[in-house]
């Protein structure tokens, strides 16, 4: 999940502590990283539009200790130019954000209107609706914890995602119950995220194990009789 790409705007550091570290006490540098979801966003999303004023106001050389990063698994990242969005993995985005090097661009779905739509859709339909990201819970938590100042209406988003989650969990429980009641043999877990499967997984598999054994009791055991000589 931490390699999931996320859209970030990275900004330069104004605090003295950081400038001490990197020896360039430039003031108010801003740089843009494009962390993440930009591929799926298409043309509808323009991080530069939102941020360009800031960026243009503070043109300055990069304050990161590296102009680009070489990573073993993912290849090169960067170049990290101020004012340009860069797509980097979430772990790096969080790290840079914690050091106040950047501004995060929340993924397109992390928006009150879109999330309301998703929540209403989820409540309306009986089956699970596709989530904008397979890691929507994890990303919401990470981004809201570390970058809530970059996300407009963070509290509302938190509530909306939690609502969606609760709806889905209730649905999951309902379908698990009907699965057991009708003694089905298999089920499709379309559109369920790993997080959701994980919370109920141990319980459900154990219960199904028990049920399977109790069901085999229904058939008179032929093997036991054959040993009776």
């Amino acid at each position, binding site marked *: 999940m931490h390699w999931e790409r996320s859209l970030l705007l990275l900004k330069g550091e104004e605090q003295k502590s950081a400038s001490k570290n990197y020896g360039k006490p430039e003031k108010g540098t801003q740089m843009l990283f494009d962390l993440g979801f930009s591929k799926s966003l298409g043309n509808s999303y323009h991080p530069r539009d939102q941020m360009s004023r800031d960026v243009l106001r503070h043109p300055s050389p990069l304050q990161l200790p590296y102009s680009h990063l070489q990573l073993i698994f993912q290849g090169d990242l960067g170049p990290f130019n101020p004012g340009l969005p860069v797509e980097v993995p979430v772990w790096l985005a969080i790290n840079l954000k914690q050091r106040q090097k950047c501004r995060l661009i929340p993924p397109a779905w992390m928006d009150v209107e879109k999330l309301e739509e998703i929540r209403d859709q989820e409540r309306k339909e009986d089956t699970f609706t596709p989530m904008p990201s397979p890691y929507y819970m994890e990303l919401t*938590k990470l981004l809201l*914890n570390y970058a809530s100042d970059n996300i407009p209406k963070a509290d509302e988003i938190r509530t909306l995602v939690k609502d969606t989650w609760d709806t889905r*969990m209730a649905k999951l*429980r309902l379908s*698990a*119950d009907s699965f*057991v*009641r009708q*003694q089905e043999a298999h089920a499709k877990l379309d559109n369920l995220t790993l*997080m959701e499967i*994980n*919370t*109920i*997984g*141990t*319980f459900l598999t*154990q*219960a199904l*194990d*028990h*049920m399977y*054994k*109790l*069901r*085999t*009791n*229904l058939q*008179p*055991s032929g093997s*036991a009789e054959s040993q*009776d000589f």
Partner: protein
Amino acid sequence: MAEAYFPVGPGLGPEENFLSLDDILMSQEKLPGRAESNLPRLAFALGQGSGAGSGDSIPEGSKLEIPMWLAKGLHDSKRRLISVELPKIYKEAWRTVFSADANVVDLHKMGPYYYGFGSQLLNFDNPENPEIAQCILQTFINRFRRIMDSSQNAYNEDTSSLVARLDELERALFQAGQKGLNDFQCWEKGQASQITVSSLVQNYGKRKFTEMDG
């Protein structure tokens, strides 16, 4: 979060699981039965040491309360040493109760190993076997929803009232559900990334060495 040991689950079938503590305890449960022939030198095993009759043998026709493991060993459809009756909770009257509403029955009081014991009863060639098996399965299915809901919703609560009426098998299931819930809440509060002491190590520290030597 690491467990000190992983309990071996019950066998839940005509055969019990040799390594399961639950199954060992379950096989101690008593079964009502009747001696179909004289059983010499078995009185001590059945706790009827000085019963009426000759010495330590059990006369034909006497009523017995035999533990499950012994009943399984003695039961033989050809030699007819003993006959086994159904415990009342598996009889017709109770089966009606279960089919009416399985949720209201206190399975813990009615013998804490309802499912395992019921499965073992199928060994005794009772004509009602299919009904018993069906009833046990249906009971489990009907009680499933309540166990799932209560185990997935009781966070930071006293669960003793929730599990009071559950059979041992259901309690294990309840614990599994609770673990899922607790792990999720733990993650949500950001505690999942903290490294904690293994419960094995914690328990080891509590134990006194003198006791271990003793």
